[in-house]
């Protein structure tokens, strides 16, 4: 009996001790798959501090808000989408970060000026750019090959079905660009009802040929199996299929929609100090560049992109990675940088309209 009590007490002490040490670990929450692996290699393996627990999630602010509102925060660092970083910061779900602590570029430019886009608030630390991109498989079309986003919407010239996603982001922008709106006027047009009508009229042209996907791996399958002749996908998925698996997929960079991905620290994170130090490490130019060894997402910092350019071949397979980068100079003039503040304002209304359009 005495022994039993002793064992119980002992294990309780050990358990409490383990909780104590667990607090010295950093819980980093991010998306799964090849993307998470690239982060683990580039940021995690080079980090000398506390142990990092990599946790997968499916995006969204639901879980984050639940943790913060209930006061039981277990996550430290989270990888979040552009509109969510804004809403979340507005709602007070993230810590505001001291801008001075981050590593400047080699030429001394402070981090916030080294990013390729405007920093929206003090909650964020730069991460990567990714994009929505049209693509097809080599040999699908005889003769002329599709090369612009207008070709994606032209089912007569390039027959076959089109794989598109079940939410409106990027599709509205692409539709307008394909319909002839100049790139720098797209969001201006989208602020008017007429502009939205115009986008949906363009979408109508592919509606009967559309196959809708919601999981990121799907569009690659759709195109490879021949179910669709072209599809939109995350550029990283297309890149991975080409670089790692040797698939013959051809990206159409014209009219890609580039999206941001940010790091944040949870409000009330159990290990906030270590989390901030980790972000300082992860956002330094060398680490930002190192990620591109494993996946073709564009580092947010210009100095990191320069680093990659200067040291090609950069990808771990020994291939030049720049031709697959969504943020390389050659493709920028025909790329749309998504405007998260437009989406934060109108996203709800457009989602409704898109859902209704999709199911009619």
């Amino acid at each position, binding site marked *: 009996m005495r022994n039993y009590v002793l064992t119980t007490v002992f294990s309780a002490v050990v358990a409490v001790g383990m909780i104590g040490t667990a607090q010295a670990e950093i819980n980093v929450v991010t998306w799964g798959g090849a993307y998470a692996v690239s982060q683990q290699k580039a940021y995690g393996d080079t980090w000398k501090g506390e142990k990092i627990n990599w946790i997968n999630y499916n995006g969204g602010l639901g879980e984050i808000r639940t943790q913060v509102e209930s006061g039981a925060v277990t996550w430290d660092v989270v990888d979040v989408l552009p509109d969510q970083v804004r809403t979340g910061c507005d709602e007070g779900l993230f810590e505001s970060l001291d801008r001075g602590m981050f590593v400047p570029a080699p030429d001394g430019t402070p981090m916030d000026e080294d990013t390729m886009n405007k920093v929206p608030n003090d909650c964020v630390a730069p991460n990567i750019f990714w994009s929505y991109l049209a693509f097809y498989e080599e040999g699908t079309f005889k003769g002329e090959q599709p090369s612009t986003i207008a070709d994606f919407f032209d089912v007569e010239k390039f027959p076959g079905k089109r794989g598109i996603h079940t939410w409106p982001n990027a599709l509205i922008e692409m539709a307008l660009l394909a319909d002839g709106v100049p790139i720098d006027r797209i969001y201006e047009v989208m602020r008017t009802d007429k502009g939205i009508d115009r986008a949906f009229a363009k979408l109508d042209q592919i509606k009967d040929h559309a196959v809708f996907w919601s999981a990121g791996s799907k569009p690659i399958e759709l195109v490879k*199996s021949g179910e669709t002749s072209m599809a939109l996908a995350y550029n990283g998925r297309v890149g991975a299929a080409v670089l790692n698996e040797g698939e013959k997929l051809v990206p159409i960079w014209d009219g890609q929609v580039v999206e941001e991905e940010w790091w944040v620290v949870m409000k009330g994170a159990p290990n906030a100090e270590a989390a901030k130090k980790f972000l300082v490490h992860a956002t330094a130019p060398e680490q930002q560049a190192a990620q591109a060894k494993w996946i073709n997402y564009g580092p947010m910092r210009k100095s990191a992109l320069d680093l990659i350019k200067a040291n090609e071949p950069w990808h771990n397979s020994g291939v030049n990675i720049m031709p697959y980068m969504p943020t390389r100079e050659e493709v920028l003039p025909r790329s749309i940088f998504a405007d998260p503040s437009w989406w934060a304002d109108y996203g709800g209304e457009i989602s409704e309209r898109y859902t209704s*359009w999709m199911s009619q």
Partner: protein
Amino acid sequence: MRRRGWFSDRPRVLPSPLIENFLTMPASPAKPGGPLLTADGMPLKTSLERSLKLSKIRALGLIFPPLLFLVILFVIPIGSLLTRSVDDGLSNKVLPKTLAAFERWDKTSEPDESMFEAVYLDMQAADTLDLSKLGTRMNYEKSGWRSLVKITMRGLNRIDGPPYKPAMLQLNKRWGDIEFWQSLGAMKDPVTLGYYLKAVDLKYDGNKNIMRVKKHNRIYQMLWWRTFLVSIIVTVGCLILAYPVAHLLANLPLRLSNLLMICVLMPFWTSLLVRIVSWMVMLQQNGVVNDSLVSLGMLHDENRLSMMYNFTGTVIVMTQILLPFMILPIYSVMKTIPPSYMKAAQNLGATPALAFIKVYMPQTIPGVGAGCILVFIVAIGYYITPELVGGKDGRLIGNLIAHHMQNSLNWGLASAMGAILLIAILTLYWVYDKLVGVDNMKMG
């Protein structure tokens, strides 16, 4: 004062006839005619009450953990869900002057200086976090509020003193747009039915009259209808498939029926995702079914059936996944029906078919009822399958609830939809109780 609580409120359960007899029994009175006493001289009634009270406390102690569990897991969340679905207190807290000025306004003329002043003063006094949150909330009523609030927050310090109207119009010209002002009407009360209206494609206008939302944006009515339809089809489909299987299970010799039971339960033990993905492999355009039909020449290559990523896909996959919920209750009821009833009916001259319909089937009603209720309730809130195979027109109301919980963070709307779902299910249960009787139901 008497303590109001568990014990005092309740009628004294006590005197069962036996105890009553005992109380009035003329045994060992202390004094003739006086109250009955126990051995230690305490009145018997008090002593009995005390011991009963003790046992009641003990009983309460026993049910306390499940009670706590119930409160924590059901009462509190459902309470919070219902509160969230009507709560609109933030706008009153942050913009009291603005809403007062809104009340004085005729809702059609151009907003005057006093209204701008009210907004300026409210925003000046507001907590930044509250104001940002309110911006998100206001954006539900009129797209664009969110950035308007943000821009104004940032520019507030640049405004020095009245007149405020030109200064704010200069910050952003949308302040001159009367539609933004009118949309305040929907937010003026601290308790709102706005989220419930939104959940059925209605909304408040500036005067709190209920009207339909723009034609393009009507989705919820359609989704409710679709959810209901899918649930019905899935329930009926499950019933048709499950009834013969359950009958076989109940009537085959033990060895065979055990084998069949394993076949029924096997999918139950398989990961949901695995089952969904195998259906994708089977049903997609270039999937097994289409390929076989084409190679058999029953289908032209151009006209492959689309059975995946649409309504059909959702129905097929959900039916398969929910089938065990129908088979098991029906089976458990069929198992208890003595085969002699059927024989008796046939002895009395009924054909096998007639005996089955008149004698056997009515006895399976409790299992059929339980199965249908179970499948329907699970189906109506289903979420993961429609998300994965729903594609363009197979997504259900559960997916929209998840969307508003996860992405748009419009928890008020998500709660309202959840509450409607809850009410729908309770109504259904009530109807079932009236028609068949819940006591009659046999879950397994």
